[in-house]
């Protein structure tokens, strides 16, 4: 079953500063081959000398963008998720019916009450995301704390499509800059979620600022034979 050497390669989409790149230039894999754009890391990083594009976005606008994205993922009018599902069946070890249910459930992850729950219970409240919270130290000094955005490389797992979706959602909530390295067994979900987000209307300014702060690409480390060193240095 796994030695299907003649399988047609699928094409993997990269997302660079919010824009989808479709060029099929580099071929990876043997049993389940796929084509990707040529990797250029320069536009996929954010220099430390300036703040990330989404660092100062108001949380309310981010919430609007995410909720609208979830709604569109559920309806999938452009059939982007459907396409990702079809392509994923070639590389994902899960049975097709499980994958179908997982994709159908992606939109619900972006429901407003679930996002608000995460903000309050996982991130410590919206006030530390939008500004400074004053606290008193045990010695009586007043301090201010804030959840500051970070620049991150996500080497995500590919065993379920929800991982890609929640990575994007959490990057948006924390307003960080994120480069997602696509796993070899889920090459299509993350680009599909971001391409879906690009179509939503509310909070266009925030939407585009956030799209500027996320990149998605397949890299050398996607090949199972490669050492983990490649993934960590990229």
């Amino acid at each position: 079953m796994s030695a299907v050497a003649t399988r047609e390669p699928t094409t993997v989409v990269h997302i660079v500063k919010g824009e989808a790149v479709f060029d099929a230039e580099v071929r990876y894999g043997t049993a389940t081959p796929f084509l990707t754009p040529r990797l250029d890391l320069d536009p996929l990083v954010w220099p430390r000398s300036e703040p990330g594009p989404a660092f100062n976005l108001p949380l309310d606008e981010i919430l609007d963008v995410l909720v609208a994205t979830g709604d569109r993922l559920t309806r999938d009018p452009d059939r982007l998720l459907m396409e990702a599902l079809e392509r994923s069946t070639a590389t994902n070890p899960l049975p097709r019916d499980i994958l179908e249910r997982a994709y159908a459930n992606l939109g619900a992850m972006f429901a407003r009450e679930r996002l608000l729950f995460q903000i309050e219970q996982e991130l410590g409240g919206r006030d530390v995301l939008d500004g400074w919270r004053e606290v008193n130290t045990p010695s009586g000094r007043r301090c201010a704390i804030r959840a500051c955005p970070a620049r991150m490389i996500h080497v995500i797992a590919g065993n379920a499509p929800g991982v890609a979706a929640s990575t994007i959602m959490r990057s948006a909530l924390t307003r960080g800059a994120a480069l997602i390295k696509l796993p070899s067994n889920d090459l299509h979900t993350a680009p599909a979620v971001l391409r879906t987000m690009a179509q939503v209307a509310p909070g266009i300014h925030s939407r585009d600022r956030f799209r500027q702060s996320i990149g998605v690409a397949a890299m050398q480390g996607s090949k199972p034979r490669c050492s983990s060193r490649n993934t960590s240095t990229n």
Partner: protein
Amino acid sequence: MTSIREQLLDMIEAPNAFDIPRTELEDMQLTAARDLFKERRGQIRILDKRATDTGIGEIRTFDDLVPLLFAHTVYKSYPPSFIEQGRWDRMLQWLGTLSVPDVKNTDVQGVKDVDEWLDRLNAAGHVILATSGTTGKNSFLLQTQEDVDRRRFYFRHAKGWPYVKPNQDRPFFALGPSKGPTSAVETYHLHADVFGRPGQKYFLSDEPIRISEISRLAALRKRMSEGRASPSEVRATAEESQARFKDMTARIEELTRLILEHRHEPIYVSGQYAQHMMILECAHAMGAKDGEFHPDSLVHIGGGVKNVVLPPDYKEQVDRFWGKVHRAPTYGMTEMAQALVRCEAGRYHRAPGLIMLILDQAGERLLTPADAVDGMAVGRMGFLDLLYEGRWGGIISGDKVTVDFSERCPCGRHGPTLLDNISRFSQPGEDDHIGCSGTLEAYIRGALPL
């Protein structure tokens, strides 16, 4: 050269050169400094300006030398834009403000980069030393050919002290490049001249050190630390250095084989820790054991460990590898011609032609035995090196030293000496505040038509 100064420099030939009582030297040193200042003041514009501003018309005491010492940073005080914009004529003018010979005879027409500028200076008869510029900017120091010959003379009598006399009779191994304008390369050659057996002088590489290359790397390192370097340039540079490292690995094998062939006779080996570690690993792989070298061998391990990752016990490993050979380390810097030599008691002794001026931390006042506790005081290293014909040899450094003013060193010879605990007042990348250095740099910039 005046006779007293020459006499002091020639005293290095004497068997007791590092054992002359202070009282015997000081009068001669003061006279030599007085004459040298008088002569150089008319030749080096910056020195003249400094003398005028500080009101020092004559050297009557060693204190008078203190405001006339150049900060080590003066030799890199040119505006970076001169190099970035290829203003080689301006660079010449800048160098001219610090040098005795007139450098205007240098043809800078069509010069492409700093290495070519240095080549042209060389072609015009000027020997320029450049520091490796690990902090991002290179120093340029002019010497005359006579200075180089004088240094060789100094090496012939001081190197290997107090264990070994140079006699041009050892297989010679420099774990560094044979070409390039840095003082490390020059020092390798001077050691090769005095220690090396003709026909058996080996270098790690004949690929010249290029200053423009070093500057490019330093600039990239700076951009990386500021988060402004792009992944593609970091990768390109990493690939280049990997290729270079591969070439070097092959040569290390060759050198290791040669070193092992000669291990039962006295040899000379000099290099930095990273290269010593490479030889060690290669020798072990070839089956050699630690401590197999002839006890009269001389092994120099120089320099700091800059931008290299080594195992935590690298010093112990290198020590064990060479075993009971002579080390004879010296304390010096690019700005100094006559490095201090270390005695059996682990103290550094100075040559008669080097006036040691240990200053307070601010670099403004000469420390004296009155500042000492139990004979010792901690201060900033300053000196007037009487050897140079090409430039002013008065320097105030960034080094923190402990001086022992006692009449006698524990080795039995005369003092003063420096303890073997030399460090820096600042870490690389930090600013080191020396009282006069800012002023001096301002002078130099002021001396240019900007």
